[in-house]
């Protein structure tokens, strides 16, 4: 996750409290999801960004996981997410993100 976004997330966690936040990802492939999830739960794994050593423990989801997509109104789901759901394989991401959330 780029340093600019890490800095914003750190500031928002200070402002609202990490317990009041959730992160929703839109990654197209699973390989980025684990790094993103670790960054907002355990801290920046590269130990280089603003979240290095900062375990915010913010629950993290993918937009195509049932926990998220099921709350999106049907018309928006069809218009904005249906095409993505056909090309993005969310199953491997679900496994990674469920493990990350269970660790919180």
């Amino acid at each position, binding site marked *: 996750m780029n340093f600019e976004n890490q800095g*914003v997330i750190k500031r*928002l966690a200070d402002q609202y409290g990490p317990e009041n936040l959730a992160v*929703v990802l*839109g990654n197209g*492939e699973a390989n980025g999801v684990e790094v993103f999830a670790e960054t907002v739960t355990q801290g920046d794994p590269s130990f280089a960004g603003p979240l290095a050593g900062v375990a915010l423990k913010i*629950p993290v989801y993918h937009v195509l996981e049932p926990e998220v997509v099921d709350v999106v109104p049907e018309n928006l789901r069809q218009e*904005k997410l249906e095409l*993505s759901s056909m090309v993005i394989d969310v199953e491997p991401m679900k496994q990674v993100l469920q493990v990350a959330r269970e660790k919180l």
Partner: protein
Amino acid sequence: MIKGKKVIAIGERDGVPGPVIAECLEGAGMEVVFQATECFV
């Protein structure tokens, strides 16, 4: 549960972009406090 949380939407250029995530969640009545689109390589 995600309901009732303030949402940070981090999209991806080759996946679902941040503004699309934000639009979907705001349509669900959720508060999106930040959205961005990353390019993961």
